[in-house]
């Protein structure tokens, strides 16, 4: 558990009381915190939010059966706006840190579930504020919440105020309106979004529900295998409202004997190749609202063949009879027919999926095993490293060593490159000295004799990693005054089945911070920050993240022409040879 999380562990969010977590598959000690969402990875179902006055960062990984709720409907991470505060319910990871999110929900959802709206009592457009009294809706109509008092809501230029499907100004808000709002922080009453009127509330909920239903239909209902018996599977289906809705199971399609198709999935709920690897099954039992299923459907099916992925505790996706099993979009799908230049960050990670293939601990599993130990003269295998992000603080080029501050622990680490170790900077093989001090890097580390991670076999800056994966940040919104950009992570373009080029969907979203010391490059010229525009494709390098001083861009390269300096092949620097093991005759 990070100190920041620890400090804020007792912080009560704006919705349910502490500990009022949904009934999950396992009951573990949980933490419930409210944080501002800063980055999400749609593919790996991870993200980062910030909490507290120091903007402490908290990384999270969504559990496969986690409930993500937005606008009082089921949602995917893609649906969640950055810069908005969410309530995170977290479980412990194997290292004991609270990083496993089992529920994420916004204030709108929490209030709507509680039957709460806010009646506007007073509006002050000049100050950008309004006051409102909470109402609790009961059987006989809305009532003021006893002893709740009134709350002041603040808006800024970035606050979106919704009436129907249009944004309006604060002046439109009238006394007596019932509003719901999402906020920009855990404690500050600054609104990210305000929705005016119950009709608007219902409409945005319905739209989100529809959007999420379409999302699930394209991917199949996620489910956890609770039991196997011969060729019969008992599945807890947890796909939100779609899991049990009439639209999913029209007519008698949920009756025993009707067909479903079951596809294996990993813990990110990514599938391999549903059109090919689905298994036909017949429904044996269908139970709605099973008390121990999060979203209320327990399905017993008998499949034609048992697959390895049909094991107790693993995850699958279920396609009801009327749904067509289809591949997930490029990047999300795990199986790929030898796609050209498939980005490494999106490929199936053997160390994560098959930890039994690694006789040592990795960043993805095997916490019960020791870490891989370097052997003189032998290159370490892939995924044996411990990956650490941090800001480069000092370099001793002659000794191929240096010092960085770990983002995770905020401690300074002395490191040295091992013989054969490589450095990538600006997408070129370089020396450590070529990376400017102050750059955020990823270090692939191995333990030294004392068990400390100091021995690096690879160091890379962010721009090299982006180029390696063919990824770009595409600007979605700008607030240069606040020094903030919202950007989508765009995977490389591919050719579809017909050979036509197409741009796959985004794979993540982040908040980039810029400032006066950020250098912006177009071609070989440095330009002003104000030259940035929505839609620009960026490569960036950043500083490391510190408490109270979030990571900021050091350099921003704008546009594909500018990026050619990185993507055009350049000669590699020779890598120093591995030393011969001791005792090897020369």
């Amino acid at each position, binding site marked *: 558990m990070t100190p920041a999380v620890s400090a804020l562990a007792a912080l009560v969010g704006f919705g349910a009381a502490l500990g009022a977590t949904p009934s999950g598959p396992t009951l573990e000690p949980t933490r419930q915190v409210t944080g501002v969402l800063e980055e999400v990875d749609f593919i790996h179902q991870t993200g980062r939010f910030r909490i507290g006055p120091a903007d402490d960062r908290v990384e999270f990984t969504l559990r496969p059966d986690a409930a993500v709720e937005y606008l009082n409907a089921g949602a995917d991470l893609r649906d969640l706006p950055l810069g908005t505060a969410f309530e995170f319910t977290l479980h412990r990871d194997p290292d004991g840190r609270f990083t496993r999110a089992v529920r994420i929900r916004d204030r709108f959802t929490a209030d709507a579930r509680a039957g709460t709206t806010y009646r506007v009592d007073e509006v002050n457009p000049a100050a950008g504020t309004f006051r409102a009294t909470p109402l609790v809706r009961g059987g006989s109509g809305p009532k003021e919440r006893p002893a709740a008092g009134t709350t002041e809501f603040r808006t800024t230029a970035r606050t979106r105020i919704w009436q129907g499907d249009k944004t309006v100004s604060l002046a439109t808000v009238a006394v007596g309106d019932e509003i719901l709002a999402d906020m920009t922080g855990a404690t500050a009453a600054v609104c990210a979004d305000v929705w005016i009127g119950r009709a608007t509330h219902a409409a945005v909920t319905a739209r989100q529900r529809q959007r999420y239903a379409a999302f699930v239909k394209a991917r199949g209902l996620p489910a956890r295998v609770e039991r*196997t018996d*011969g060729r019969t599977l008992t599945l807890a289906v947890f796909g939100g409202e779609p899991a049990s809705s009439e639209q999913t199971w029209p007519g008698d399609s949920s009756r025993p004997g009707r067909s479903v198709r079951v596809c*294996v*999935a*990993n813990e990110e709920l990514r599938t*391999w*190749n549903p059109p*090919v*690897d689905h298994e036909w099954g017949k429904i044996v039992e269908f139970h709605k609202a099973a008390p121990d299923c999060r979203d209320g459907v327990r399905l017993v099916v008998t499949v034609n*063949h*048992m*697959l*390895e*992925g*049909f*094991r*107790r505790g*693993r995850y699958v996706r279920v396609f009801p009879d009327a749904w067509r099993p289809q591949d997930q979009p490029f990047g999300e799908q795990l*199986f*790929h027919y*030898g796609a050209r230049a498939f980005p490494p960050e999106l*490929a*199936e990670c*053997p160390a994560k*999926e*098959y930890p*039994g*293939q*690694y*006789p*040592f601990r990795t960043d993805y599993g095997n916490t019960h095993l020791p870490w891989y130990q370097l052997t003189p003269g*032998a*290159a*370490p*295998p*892939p995924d*044996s490293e411990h990956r650490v992000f941090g800001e480069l603080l000092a370099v001793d080029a002659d000794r191929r060593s240096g010092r960085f501050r770990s983002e995770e622990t905020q401690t300074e680490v002395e490191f040295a490159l091992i013989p054969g170790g490589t450095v990538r900077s600006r997408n070129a093989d370089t020396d450590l000295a070529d990376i400017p001090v102050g750059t955020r890097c990823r270090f692939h580390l191995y333990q030294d004799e004392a068990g400390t991670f100091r021995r690096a076999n690879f160091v890379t800056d962010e721009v090299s990693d982006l180029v390696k994966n063919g990824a770009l940040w595409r600007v979605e919104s700008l607030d240069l005054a606040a020094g903030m950009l919202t950007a989508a992570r765009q995977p490389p373009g591919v050719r579809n089945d017909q050979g036509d080029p197409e741009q796959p969907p985004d794979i993540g979203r982040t908040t980039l911070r810029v400032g006066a010391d950020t250098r912006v490059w177009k071609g070989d010229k440095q330009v002003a920050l104000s030259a940035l525009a929505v839609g620009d494709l960026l490569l960036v390098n950043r500083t490391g993240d510190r408490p109270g001083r979030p990571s900021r861009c050091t350099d921003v390269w704008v546009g594909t022409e500018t990026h050619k300096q990185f993507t055009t092949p350049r000669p590699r620097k020779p890598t120093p040879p591995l030393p011969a093991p001791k005792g090897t005759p020369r």
Partner: protein
Amino acid sequence: MNRIFLLAALLPAVAAAPARAADDGLDRLVRPFFADHCVSCHGPKTAKGDFRVDTLTVDYDSPKMMAHWEEVMGRVNSGDMPPKGKPRPKPADVARVAEWITGQLGEAEARGQAAGGERVAFRRLSREEYANTVRDLLGVTFDATDPTGLPDDPDWHGFQRIGSVLTLSPAHVEKYLAAAEAVLNEALPTGPRPAREVVRWGAFDLRGGSWKKYEKEYQARGIADKVRADVVPNNGALDDHTLHVEKAGDYLVRVKLSGLRPEGGRAPRLRLYDATIGRLLFERDVEAPEAAPVTIEVRVHLPAGDHNVRIMNAVPGPNPEDRRSRSSEVPNAFTGLRTRVPWQMKFTDDDGKPIVPFLLVDFIEWDGPVLASWPTPAYKQVFFGGESAAKDLTYARQVVTRFAERAWRRPVRPAEVDRLVALVEKAQKLGDSFEAAVKTALLAVLNSKSFLYLEEGSAAAPAPGLTDWELASRLSYFLWSSMPDRRLFDLAREDKLHQPDVLRAEVRRMLTDPKAAAFGESFPRQWLQLRKVGMFAPDRTLYPEYDEYLEKSMIAETTSYFREVLARNAGLREFLDSDWTMLNERLAAHYAIPGVAGEEMRRVPLAPEHHRGGLLTHASVLSLTSDGTRHRPVHRGVWVLESIINRPPPPPPANVPALGTPSAKARKTTVREKLELHRADANCAACHQRIDPLGLAFDNYDAIGRWRAVETVRDGTGGGPPIDPSGELIDGRKFADAAGLKRLLFEDTDKFVTAFAEKLATYALRRGMTFGDRAGLKRLVEQSKPGGYKLASFIESLVLSDLFRKR
């Protein structure tokens, strides 16, 4: 080879007088029938179609006359004659006439095979005998059934060693030349001793491209030695692998693997198939835990060249024909049951117990060529003089003479040796070394008629009996399917073999020799026509449990049953019924007989509830008489008449309609009920009254020989109809079921033994039996009766009989 054709062409024509029918059936039975139904149109007054029946006689040596009889039988049997509007003969009369004609046609055919009038009889070795002979002559395995081997031998009523049927085609000539060359090259190699090498295919090699690229990564991870190749069931196979064999010879194949059997299911079955030569190298059930693999070692003979080897798991199971059985495209080789890809077939349940039979292969090694010594034993035997011998024509003459005498199984005449030595001389003049030149002569020996054919008789000195040399060969090829050994040659050379005591002792010696397994295997296969097993592969939908292993086990039950009777010198009645049989685990499971584990056939006691006993309830027999979709009672009846009673029925008339398919709305009916409708036709009834009861008695056994009480019928309404296996023989005796029929056959043991004697003699003498042989056969049956028709004694009696010892 021209010499072979020349000799074949010069064979003396048969000069015997036309053979006449030996019984009175023509006057007693046939002529009255003709008079009543045929002569009015095909007689002296009116010869429609220019054909008269009143002048027909029986002349076995006249193909034209016998063809007339065949035509008559066909027309009468099918009901074409008498024509419409004429009075119909009684079905029983038609049946009797047809049966008599069938007997005459059979006699004519058998006489054609007999050597009665020939001065010299030539009977070609079957390909099995050829392979056995070169094995015993040169110590070399010749894979006769490989594509590079010899053509399949045709059969006559199941027998694949009948002289007149085993003809010689140009294809044979080419194959014999190639075979002899390959055999001599392997037996008599020259030059340095070939290095014995071990080729190992590890798991990364076995998985090939999909895994091989990960080998270094796995080495770096430190688990490369843990990688194993998984093989799914239902003939799931690893990618083919090519083995290059530099030198033909014997190779040791070692396979280290685990085989996991699901609870209550079958063990996985390793099959190594050489696709290049179309040969199953070996197959075996494997049961070994994941953590305790076993190493199997077998010895195989491989010709030189590239061999495409397929490694399979030949046990039924889930369909592997799709993604489920493929490997992943990420670095994920198999190292344990917890490391499999989610979309692959599931091998174990959540508690780790196997749910399908699968193999985990660690490696396959090819070790060879394995040589007993260098030079080879054959080399030392042929070039008996060793390195010190003078390599001149005198020595060559000695070498060739010794070899030819063994190969030709008789003394060699000087003129024959002269021709062979001349070959040596000529080859040497053309530059061949001494050994190579001698091999040229030996090649001629192996391609001569005296090697390829069993010769009996002498053009110079015709005689009715066999010489001792001929007797040695006849005996040897009867019991060993191979050439005589040194002792038989010695006895022949000493002219002692024909002496009854000597001959009896030799039969007893030979039956206890391992080479007698050839007789124990070949005779029952040919007698009972077991080559038809699996000829019509059972429908995979109707009989999903049927597989090659079951098929082999079925045949093995019958052949090992025969060997068991022979080894114990048990009575021939055991073939009709018994309280034991030979089973392995696979067949025992098929018969629902518990308590039998393992692949080896072993004697298993039977209880009445098993519904088995004797040959007639062997799944092989019940299966070979089915057509792949259902049992065929008529085929079963015909088989009993042919193989057990040796009174084959007339062939069916042309254009027999198939059994009808009932309306889908009608109740389900058994095959028996459908046959009843067929038998309502008077023309069919006569023969079917004789045939059908013998087949219907086994209706409780389905097309693959499983016991059942009701018949599975697809079309119609209601449940499966119950089976009625009762019947009545043509002589009026009734039975309730298969057991009842076996009891009636038991009562007629003499008839069965007579039939068996004819089959055994046909096999031994390589020809059909004629009327002239009947007396000898009858004596044989009578002699063995007091002893209870014991099989080994019966064989002994046959060998000692005049029938066996005459030409």
